[in-house]
């Protein structure tokens, strides 16, 4: 049993003010699009207007004549090396060579003296195509004789996964009840508020790229690789980032073009998307068709589970390969399932590519599973929460797939959520049109492997103490995309050094200046960058304590024969440092300030630096694809939602929500609750409203925020966010685990189950719109009349 050692922390566990709070609330925070450099030029991408076809001719002559146009580039002007996530699926070029694969595909870039000229020039460029038949749905993509989008993906199958653990067929034979359900998810979009923007500039053979991104390291890696540069010659950095949710992890055409155009023209170049283009850039959630078959015993214990996922991948692969694995890789984590099978087919279609979106591949399968579980429970007469308690994973266990799970308190989370929400009084008792539902979820706390093959550590932290000891500069390439990673890293660094949080300053997300971290994805930074800065802080502290011993001795304040020390000399481990005060543990009145000790160190030994290193080491799982899913720590959570359904109009109102999280130590409660609140916001939106739509030519229909409907503040219910107090994760610094992505995974299940409880019809297609509910109720009425 991992039990939390209650510690008296100064900053860990405190809702300190975010380090960027003032800048952001006063509007002074600079985002990439706010940056201006002398002589800066502006650029945009030329995009395909058809879904599938060969480029016959690109006529740029009219545009080139336009006053102020500086350059127009297409595939012939740039390297042709392909990129992607896994080498077997490097299938994307900087600009389309020969063939365009979706409406919005990248054909080239225009660069001019100002934005207005760029827009005008774009209109003057004429692209001639030979149109090819397009496939716009998985059904079309699967068909015999369907148009082939890529030579390398015969039958348009981009990825196929077959995982088999135990023996499902055998186990199903003994089952008390077996049930199959089919559910369908939808394509959604991250809807971050800051669109992509990149600025490139050169100095000799060295380039600098500002990009609104989630990982400066991966961006540097991809761009350097494709452009044939040494990574060290390409500095990638970000300013403030207006969220990402997975959509700023793949490189974009903007990044490549900004670097290439600024080199060509010898001037800085800013490339940007508007909202519609960001939708077209895509990489949001896949629409997944899901079939689930589960056998249970009388109590609802799962004996075997078969899951098939059919994913609409859109045009290119990018991170989509990982999404495919994540759709099933965590199947055996939440619930203890000994026999299971996961089959997945990711198809390519002529639509914008899909990829990572908060919860990566998991939220729709979780919705399907959680709803399926309720339907099973209903059939065998077991309460939904009891169903989950029977199957919940326990502490210190190993999953069927071989993943090692240390802290795990899913059962406790269910019990707490049940009690907090008044479940027993409400479930099945709220009357027609009102319902309550539960969903469980969780996520990895960081991926066990780098996205490309390497032996690099996953995170390096460095802390430099300012000469006079009054400031600590913390370095990491961790990316604060709004989630507050800078703040929690500073909290952990301050705690480790024993100096005030307010005296710490972050230098993050700059490949030149800060130290390696793979960035914001897979809910990894608080744990991985957390370890790195904590260890860097501990090294600083160690050096301070050593220095302090020398100073105590020199000062004569420690006399030989002094009570505590006895006959031995004072040692660093007799001392500690907290909140900027170095003291002798057994004699707390004997103190020095951190500042005076640090200054002395600087004077006598030079700059005071602490370094930290983190690599997760070898983790569990040996099957093909184990790399996606293996992690040092797994979070879990239970969410409960209460809804009202207007039985005449189908209108759904989410009236109340509860979340109980098993996230280990909570470093900053306010930021933690913010993540939970935001997760509900996204999850409720994806359950009821959000869907990216296209017409029958593959043209985007709702690339804006009036028709791509996100919930508004008025649509948001109150959120009660609780934590499992005694959750303590041995693999996390200070015992922490993730909350960022896992928190979105239970929501759709919880809300969908509540809707089911309210209306009595199982809704098997996301989003569960008002009209779909209305129609289902009408159909039910008709059937009952018959």
């Amino acid at each position, binding site marked *: 049993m991992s039990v939390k050692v209650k510690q008296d922390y100064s900053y860990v566990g405190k809702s300190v003010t975010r380090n960027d709070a003032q800048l952001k609330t006063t509007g002074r925070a600079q985002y990439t699009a706010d940056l201006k450099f002398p002589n800066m030029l502006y650029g945009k991408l030329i995009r395909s207007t058809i879904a599938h076809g060969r480029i016959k001719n690109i006529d740029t002559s009219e545009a080139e004549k336009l006053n102020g146009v500086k350059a127009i580039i297409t595939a012939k002007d740039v390297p042709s090396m392909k990129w992607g996530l896994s080498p077997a699926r490097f299938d994307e070029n900087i600009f389309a060579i020969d063939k365009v694969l979706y409406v919005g595909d990248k054909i080239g870039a225009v660069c001019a003296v100002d934005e207005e000229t760029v*827009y005008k020039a774009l209109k003057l460029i004429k692209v001639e195509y030979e149109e090819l038949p397009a496939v716009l749905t998985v059904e079309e993509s699967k068909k015999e004789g369907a148009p082939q989008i890529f030579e390398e993906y015969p039958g348009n199958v981009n990825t196929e996964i077959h995982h088999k653990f135990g023996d499902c067929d055998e186990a199903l034979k003994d089952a008390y009840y077996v049930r199959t359900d089919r559910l369908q998810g939808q394509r959604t979009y991250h809807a971050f508020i*800051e669109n*992509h923007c990149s600025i490139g500039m050169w100095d000799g053979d060295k380039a600098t790229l500002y990009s609104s991104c989630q990982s400066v390291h991966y961006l540097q890696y991809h761009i350097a690789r494709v452009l044939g540069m040494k990574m060290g010659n390409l500095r990638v950095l970000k300013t403030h980032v207006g969220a990402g949710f997975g959509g700023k992890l793949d490189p974009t055409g903007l990044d490549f073009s900004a670097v290439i155009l600024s080199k060509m023209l010898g001037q800085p170049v800013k490339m940007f998307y508007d909202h519609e283009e960001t939708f077209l850039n895509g990489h949001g959630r896949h629409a997944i068709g899901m079939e689930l078959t589960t056998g249970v015993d009388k109590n609802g214990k799962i004996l075997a589970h078969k899951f098939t996922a059919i994913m609409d991948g859109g045009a290119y692969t990018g991170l989509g390969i990982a999404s495919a694995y994540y759709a099933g890789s965590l199947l055996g984590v939440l619930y203890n399932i000994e026999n299971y099978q996961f089959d997945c087919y990711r198809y390519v279609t002529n639509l914008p590519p899909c990829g990572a979106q908060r919860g990566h591949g998991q939220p729709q399968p979780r919705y399907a599973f959680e709803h399926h579980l309720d339907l099973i429970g209903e059939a065998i007469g077991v309460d939904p929460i009891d169903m989950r308690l029977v199957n919940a994973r326990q502490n210190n266990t190993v999953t069927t797939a071989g993943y090692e799970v240390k802290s795990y308190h899913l059962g406790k989370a269910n019990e707490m959520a049940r009690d907090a929400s008044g479940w027993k009084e409400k479930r099945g008792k709220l009357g027609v049109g009102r319902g309550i539902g539960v969903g469980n979820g969780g996520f990895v706390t960081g991926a066990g492997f780098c996205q490309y093959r390497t032996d690099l550590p996953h995170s390096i932290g460095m802390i430099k103490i300012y000469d006079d000891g009054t400031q600590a500069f913390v370095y990491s390439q961790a990316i604060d995309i709004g989630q507050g990673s800078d703040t929690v890293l500073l909290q952990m660094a301050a705690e480790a050094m024993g100096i005030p949080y307010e005296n710490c300053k972050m230098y993050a997300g700059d490949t030149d200046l800060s130290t390696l971290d793979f960035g914001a994805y897979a809910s990894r930074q608080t744990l991985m960058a957390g370890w790195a800065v904590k260890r860097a802080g501990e090294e600083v502290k160690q050096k301070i304590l050593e220095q302090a011993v020398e100073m105590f001795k020199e000062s004569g304040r420690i006399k030989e024969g002094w009570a505590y020390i006895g006959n031995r000399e004072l040692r660093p481990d007799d001392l500690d440092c907290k909140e900027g005060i170095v003291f002798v543990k057994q004699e707390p009145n004997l103190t020095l300030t951190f500042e005076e000790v640090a200054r002395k160190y600087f004077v006598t030994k030079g700059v005071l630096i602490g370094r930290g290193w983190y690599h997760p080491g070898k983790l569990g799982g040996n099957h093909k694809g184990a790399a996606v899913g293996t992690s040092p720590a797994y979070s879990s959570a239970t969410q409960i939602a209460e809804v009202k359904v207007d039985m005449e*109009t189908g209108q759904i109102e989410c009236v109340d929500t509860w979340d109980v999280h098993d996230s280990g130590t909570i470093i900053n409660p306010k930021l933690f609750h913010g993540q939970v609140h935001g997760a509900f916001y996204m999850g409720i939106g994806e359950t009821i409203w959000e869907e990216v739509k296209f017409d029958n030519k593959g043209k985007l*229909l709702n690339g804006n925020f009036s028709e791509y*409907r996100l919930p508004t503040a008025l649509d948001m219910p109150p959120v009660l966010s609780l934590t499992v107090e005694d959750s303590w994760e041995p693999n996390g610094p200070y015992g922490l685990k993730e909350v960022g992505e896992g928190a979105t995974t239970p929501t759709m299940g919880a809300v969908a189950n509540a809707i089911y409880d309210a209306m009595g019809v199982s809704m098997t297609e996301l989003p569960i719109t008002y009209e779909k509910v*209305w129609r289902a109720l009408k159909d039910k009425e008709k059937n009952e009349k018959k």
Partner: protein
Amino acid sequence: MVIGHRSKCIYQQIIRMLQFSEEGDAERQIVVKFVMQVDNYLKRGGENVYLPDFEYYTPDSIAEACQLLSQFGASAKVIAGGTDLVNKMKKELLAPEVLVSIKNLDQLKKIEYVPGRGVVIGARVTHNELVKSEVLNEKYSSVSNAAQQMAHNQVRNAGTVGGNICNAVPSADLPPIFIAFNATVKLTGVNGERTLALEDLFTGPGKTVMTQDELITEVVIPDQKMTGSNYIKFGLRKSGALAVVGVAVAVQVENNVIKDARVALGAVAATPVRAKKTEDFLKGKEVSDELLAEAGFIATGECKPISDIRASAEYRTDLVRVFTKRALRKAIDEGHV
């Protein structure tokens, strides 16, 4: 009058014009703020392209405004709050060469009760001014409530009654409730004024009987015998959603008998429509749940909705049934809400 000139980067231009014109009324501040928001949004990579060039006039009288409109003909457009017009220009659905702003016409900014005429609402009154109006809150808070359900706060600060009507969008929220009150509009052109019933103004989506030189100057809600009224907007979320269906009703109920009723439907036909059969059915009948349910059914026969990205025709039709019934119930039980 500010003499119009060709403007390059139009947002900067408008901001400058607004900032440097003499007096600083609140409305202007709001517009400045709105334009600056749009400007910032664009800088962040906002929704769309640059506005085409245009000339900009700010006449000081209604007559001058009409004169300009007549002079420039089809190439000129009135701009009020700009919440609709600027969007259309950005999307290049419209490219007026001349914009005639009515921002200096303060006589169009009042809401007042004029004995004998009724409640007179100036065309430049914003949605949020309807929301806050004491006159309306006291007499017909159903109008304020209808305005409150529109758009977002930012748009409600800028968008105007005149703009909402002249747009002639089937889903516009104000026409149904005004029509339920049998409101009239006053049009002023170079040849003088005319008054007509609001419901006779619309001829199709985006189309009205107005001539190029005409302005809407006011909307008048005549004195009412109606004892209750209500507008229900059904959008696909609670804010910032256009109406999928809008139902406005006004009823005169005495001793539980419906003496008179007017029902106006939005977003379910090419223009806002009166549900006259429903009205006739209701008149003279005693209020009961069955009666109102029946009225809902009748109303479904009086709309011709289309299917679009937001809803199917079938769904809209059934929503008309539900909301006619509910709006009637509210107006009967709770008065002008």
